[in-house]
């Protein structure tokens, strides 16, 4: 019986602890304290820099309040799932960073606040590059602001190309690129350095799209006759242009370039494991900042993806533009304050120090080319050339089904790397994408 009484007492103690833990005591302790919660994607340093300055400004503007930002920085691979789970569970979050390709699914699911009215009052949309502003729209509503961007370009080690007797201009077209890869392979085979880098990782479609776009092809296009939505997206990436673009990847494999399954986001290039690499502008961040002022002497950059013709003037190159969008979830309890924080983060005096530190490109014209660009031009290597690519860059479709469509394309690319005919691989992928899109 004594044991039983102890057991009952323990039950009551556990129950009491549970109820006490559920009581929200914070508002009683500090009424004027507001904590904004946020989920961001790595790297953490960029958010530390941005939020340190932004929090100060926000608090200065609201002397009657103590505003704190509780932000979690997650690895890229976890961010989408974590935000998704939090929003599905209606967890109040005030600010999130979204990869541009996630916007569609989050917006369609009703997770994001409509910022249209706020942006109209703010009246700064005209300062954004058109592609970047439109990247934050979904069904004609502003669902997020594209904060900074990146473009993919062609990077090479000058000394390695010199030693292999390759003129960098050769890399600008498909046939030159293939022949240069053969020369480099022969020249570097005993040095533990590989010639050309070819992406075989999960984001391989991102490195194929520019070839598709420069030929005039599209990943998806809107068509009438959808069984439920009348007019909806239809996969067109398996067109002749798509096949031709994918054939170029196959030609690279046939020329002995190994697709790299693991990707280190430019670190492999900075470590001189590859002589040539098509990589995003974030590659600069892999080099020591002290090296930046002399980097152009060692590293060459061609602001383009190789083009199919022998003279680049016939075909306009293209590139893929990525980057991060800042959005306010529907679950936020402090939407006005979150909007204010978001706009502070986008102010040049807050944003520029972070761009300088990380080597990202701005989405605002005034920072890219206007009055605030001087510091960026003098600090970030090849800054002007990289900014010039923004006008040639395209974003991926930000529709809810994009992740699965990208998976189909990735499978097709993998099949081609393993010897399957490009047309057959793309046709199979397209069938699956049509089904996923509801056709």
């Amino acid at each position, binding site marked *: 019986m004594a044991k*039983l009484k102890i057991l009952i007492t323990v039950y009551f103690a556990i129950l009491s602890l549970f109820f006490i833990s559920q009581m929200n005591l914070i508002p009683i302790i500090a009424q004027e304290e507001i904590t904004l919660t946020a989920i961001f994607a790595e790297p953490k340093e960029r958010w530390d820099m941005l939020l340190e300055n932004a929090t100060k400004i926000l608090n200065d503007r609201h002397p009657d309040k103590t505003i704190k930002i509780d932000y979690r920085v997650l690895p890229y691979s976890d961010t989408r799932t974590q935000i998704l789970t939090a929003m599905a569970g209606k967890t109040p979050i005030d600010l999130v960073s979204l990869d541009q390709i996630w916007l569609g699914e989050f917006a*369609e699911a009703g997770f994001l606040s409509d910022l249209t009215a706020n942006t109209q009052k703010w009246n700064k949309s005209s300062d954004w590059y058109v592609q970047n502003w439109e990247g934050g729209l979904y069904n004609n509503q502003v669902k997020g602001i594209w904060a900074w961007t990146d473009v993919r370009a062609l990077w090479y080690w000058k000394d390695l190309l010199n030693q292999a007797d390759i003129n960098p201009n050769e890399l600008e077209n498909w046939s030159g690129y293939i022949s240069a890869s053969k020369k480099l392979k022969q020249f570097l085979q005993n040095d533990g350095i590989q010639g050309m880098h070819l992406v075989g990782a999960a984001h391989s479609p991102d490195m194929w799209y520019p070839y598709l776009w420069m030929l005039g092809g599209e990943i998806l296009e809107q068509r009438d006759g959808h069984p439920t939505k009348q007019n909806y997206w239809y996969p067109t990436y398996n067109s002749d242009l798509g096949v031709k673009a994918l054939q170029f990847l196959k030609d690279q494999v046939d020329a002995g370039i190994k697709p790299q399954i693991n990707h280190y986001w430019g670190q492999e290039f900075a470590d001189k*494991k590859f002589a040539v690499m098509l990589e995003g502008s974030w590659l600069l961040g892999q080099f020591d900042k002290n090296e930046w002022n002399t980097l152009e002497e060692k590293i060459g950059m061609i602001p383009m993806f190789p083009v199919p013709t022998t003279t680049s003037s016939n075909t306009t190159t293209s590139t893929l533009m990525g980057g991060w969008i800042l959005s306010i979830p529907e679950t936020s309890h402090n939407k006005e304050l979150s909007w204010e924080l978001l706009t502070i983060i986008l102010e040049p005096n807050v944003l520029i120090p972070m761009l300088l530190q990380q080597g990202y490109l701005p989405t605002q014209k005034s920072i890219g080319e206007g009055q605030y660009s001087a510091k960026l031009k003098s600090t970030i290597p090849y800054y002007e050339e990289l900014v010039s690519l923004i006008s040639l860059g395209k974003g991926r479709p930000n529709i809810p089904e994009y992740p699965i469509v990208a*998976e189909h394309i990735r499978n097709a690319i993998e099949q081609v790397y393993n010897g399957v005919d490009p047309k057959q691989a793309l046709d199979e992928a397209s069938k699956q994408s049509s089904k996923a899109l509801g056709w």
Partner: protein
Amino acid sequence: MRLQNNRQKPWVGSSIVFIFLKFAYNRIELLILKRFEPYLFLLPSIIILFVFLFIPLIWNIYISLHDVSILTIIKEWNFVGLKNFYNIFSDSNFYNSVKVTLVFVCGSVLLQFGIGLVISLLLNQQVRASGLFRTLFIIPWTVSTVITGFSFKFLFDDSFGIINYGIEKLGLESIGWFSDPNLAIWIVIVANTWYGAPFTILFLTAGLLSINPTIYEAAIIDGATKFRRFFYITLPLLKSFILTNLILVTVWTINFFDLQLIMTNGGPLSSTTTMSLYMYKQAFEFGYFSEGAAVGILLIIMNIAVAFVYLKLFDVRNKNT
């Protein structure tokens, strides 16, 4: 007197009622508590099982019968019956994942069990520093799967891995461990074996230590060879340990997806996409939660079937012996 009687009556009456109630309460308390005492002691585990096993299981079944995706998660969930199961069974990638799961589970369990048994037998010999070796062999199991995954990913990296570096130093052509669809699954199996074999070592060592050494001494006196001692004493006496170990290792391997996710993300050409990874991708990469839930239920059925087959197999052998 009459007045006095009147005054006494309520006191006497209430005392009787009180005594009766007290008696009844004690009897009931004794009866109920005596009867339910064992259940009360079981209650914590029942609550834990209910909250962490039954509720999620029922919730999973509920989701698998509704249309829940990233687009509908905060909207109304329509009942769709078995449509999600139909979608799964009409997806060729699912059949591929079943095939990959079979290879992954068979390869992992055979290697883990084989290596684990051999090492535990060696550790059971009366050799110097066997305790130290036992500790060393357990280390991989204490390492997180994430670290294991990344370590093997870097070891076998096609371009920068130390394995290919060694191969190239020998003057041979480097091997595309992760780019060859026929090889990638075996690298994941090797990593899983490295990670999982220590559990078998630990488990079977405990089993070997529980065998009375006098049985071996008697067998040696009777002239039994090492081979015969192993097959006629060790194996039969280890049977219950082997059974439990096989069930646990098989079920864990079926559900395992961390290593595949980290090392290959299911590629190349879905050659390392097991059912559990397929489930994860459906739910969290593509946002089809109900289809992910449907695969989850199929996995539970698979786990139960595996445990049942093992139990039946060992039961038959028990009867035969």
